[in-house]
């Protein structure tokens, strides 16, 4: 595999880096503290094309692929993981799903709005009783003439209360388990849609995570994504891509942890020398850098395979498993390098520590990644 980014991918990364530094950096700590949704940042991301990364040009996207998207997400998450997850979900889970599984009419209707950022997207799969066991979801879609009538509750939905469009998974066959689920694309302005309880989270606090309530919402059959009862397969395929995005988020947080730790270790003196000269500190920095380099290769490999339409479930799971655990380790050690200062909100590492923790949970927990990987290696 080629380890270099092409010119376009490099340009996207540079653009994302500038966007992160100029648009996301200044208010990141404040938005986290007040749990304010990054409306301005999302709008600006749309103007820059960052919300149409996986949308073809004919539908208004920049169609840069998963590798460029991952590189951009690293840069954004390095500065603000709340903006990062919002953009990641919109691209990898929502636009990508509509593009891959929507009919021509559906794509033409929705993709331009998503790609420009005029509309923000959410992805509604999890329920209170269906987390890692997503296939047990109970939200119900019943056919009624040319429509489906959907009722139920979705949980932990990123951007759910800010979204204009939701990719929604509902049960169309109550007796068929994983094979009785269908994916729909719905608009939040429709009757029967309501956002419910807002989660108060440990980290990524300026991203929005809500419950969504569906009460006899009428959805035209034309808004089915893919085939009826094939929704679970769609969910898994889309999550493969999403996991690369979360791995990129973990990598971005890790890079921020290392940068902050290096700066502090070079400046802080104890026992008459810079703490960067002590082995226990050096060792932490060396471990972080090793984990960063390994994560980057795993992410590029998985993204590149996805861009080539080659099998990549295992690679995406490995990237997410490795990078998310590495990010948690790095964040814990970054606070440690900073000592008491790291425990206080004057330094950003306490925010990185809180943000990093989610990467082992959403879009498939660490345990789910291991299930996926083990299933692959045990295949005959």
């Amino acid at each position, binding site marked *: 595999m080629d380890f270099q980014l092409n010119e376009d991918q490099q340009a996207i990364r540079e653009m994302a880096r500038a966007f992160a530094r100029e648009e996301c950096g200044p208010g990141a700590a404040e938005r986290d503290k007040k749990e304010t949704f990054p409306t301005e940042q999302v709008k600006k991301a749309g103007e820059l094309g960052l919300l149409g990364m996986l949308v073809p040009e004919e539908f208004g996207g920049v169609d840069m692929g998963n590798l460029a998207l991952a590189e951009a997400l690293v840069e954004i998450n390095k500065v603000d993981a709340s903006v990062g997850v919002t953009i990641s979900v919109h691209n990898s889970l929502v636009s990508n799903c509509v593009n891959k599984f929507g009919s021509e009419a559906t794509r033409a209707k929705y993709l331009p709005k998503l790609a420009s950022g005029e509309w923000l997207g959410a992805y509604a799969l*999890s329920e209170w*009783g*269906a*987390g*890692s*066991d997503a296939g*047990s979801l109970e939200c119900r879609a019943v056919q009624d003439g040319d429509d489906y009538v959907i009722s139920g509750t979705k*949980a*932990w939905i990123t951007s759910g209360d800010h979204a204009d469009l939701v990719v929604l998974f509902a049960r169309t066959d109550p007796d068929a388990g994983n094979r009785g689920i269908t994916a729909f694309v719905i608009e939040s302005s429709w009757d029967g849609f309501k956002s419910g309880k807002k*989660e*108060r*989270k*440990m*980290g990524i606090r300026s991203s929005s995570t809500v419950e969504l309530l569906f009460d006899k919402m009428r959805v035209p059959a034309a808004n089915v994504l893919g085939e009826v009862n094939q929704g679970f397969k769609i969910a898994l395929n889309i999550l493969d891509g999403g996991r690369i995005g979360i791995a990129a988020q973990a990598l971005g947080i890790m890079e921020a942890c290392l940068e902050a730790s290096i700066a502090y270790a070079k400046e802080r*003196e*104890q*026992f*008459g020398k810079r703490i960067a000269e*002590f082995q*226990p*500190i050096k060792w932490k920095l060396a471990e972080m850098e090793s984990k960063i380099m390994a994560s980057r290769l795993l992410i590029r490999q998985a993204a590149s395979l996805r861009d080539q339409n080659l099998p990549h479930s295992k690679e995406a799971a490995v990237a997410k498993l490795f990078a998310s655990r590495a990010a*948690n380790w790095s964040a*814990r050690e970054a*606070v*440690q390098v900073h*000592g*008491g200062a*790291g*425990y*206080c*909100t*004057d330094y950003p590492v*306490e925010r990185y*520590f*809180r943000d990093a*923790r*989610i990467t*082992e*949970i*959403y879009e498939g*927990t*660490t*345990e789910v990644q*291991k299930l996926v990987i083990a299933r692959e290696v045990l295949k005959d």
Partner: protein
Amino acid sequence: MAYGADITLRDPVPFFEDHHYEIREMAQRYAQEVVKDRAAAIDENKEFPHDTVKELAEMGFLGVPFPEEVGGAGFDYLSYILVVEELSRVCGTTGITVAAHTSLGTNPIYAFGTDRQKEKYLRKLASGEMLGAFGLTEPGAGSDAGATRTTAVRDGDDWIVNGTKVYCTNGTHAGTVIITTRTNPDKPGGSGVTAFVIERDFDGVTLGTLEDKLGLRASDTRELVLENVRVPDENRLGEEGTGFRKFMQTLDSGRISIGALSLGLAQGALDVALPYAAERKQFGRAIGEFGAIQERLADMAVGIHTARLACYHAAALKDRGHDINYAASIAKLHASEIAMDAIDSAIQIMGGNGYSREYPVERMLRDAKLCEIGEGTSEVQRMVIARQMIKSIQ
């Protein structure tokens, strides 16, 4: 056992006496019935728990290891460790407030104070009439505690103190603060350091920044600015130049209480995650039936069990008058690290709920991170342990 009566707490502890079980149960009842319900709100609002502190004082929990004749509850250090553990099991802020008051703000006066200092301050501290604080850390003196820059210059019968102390737990609400100062600028490191007891409302003591923290958010972490503070010589704690050594001894016993804080937080996370694992169903069965979750539960139990023994062991050694430098560092290091791992596992077992502030485990993880930093970082503990090991064979 009234609360969390699972097997992880069922066994008797061989060196416990009857009063240890009794005080543990008393602390447990108060923690579970009163403190637990306050924990989330005080963390969210960063609100110092004055009501809890008042009740703790009434119950004698602010002077557990001190004799009744000086105003204390008349128990031992192990009893105190059990109280910190049980309080921290539901609220880290309450645990650290008691720990900082007892082992750092009060114990040095009990251990090294003159009769006059004991009469004047210890009674009020040990009875909980006022809170105690401890000012060792400075902007330039963290792990390198000997780098104290705060100065005390002799002026007749007094000393004039100037400097800044940071991360001072209970700094806002304390009646007294024990501080380290440099009294001899020509002597390097710890040898020119002298300790004093100052009153928070002495002229020249002003409140600096109130720290906004990752965890233990309702605990009071304050910068204290000392500007020409006139301190009577009778407030000197120990001889000139012995301040550093004394503080280091104080930190040894303080470390056991940070171990107990860690232990309590870890047990608290298990208290929540264990029933969750038994009840939460995915893939048609309780997640506690899956091997991956069982591994996490078992590792949590092993970590907590060994940390508990290490903490109790160090406390029992202290009660028997032994040097605890080595045992206290081992207890603190091990307990703080297993706490981070155990609470991390509790979050993972609970998935999205673990990350939510509706449940206490995310708070416990934020609280526990302090235990790897405060009263000697993990790096300092490893240095202490290794040095003792090497010294022992030379």
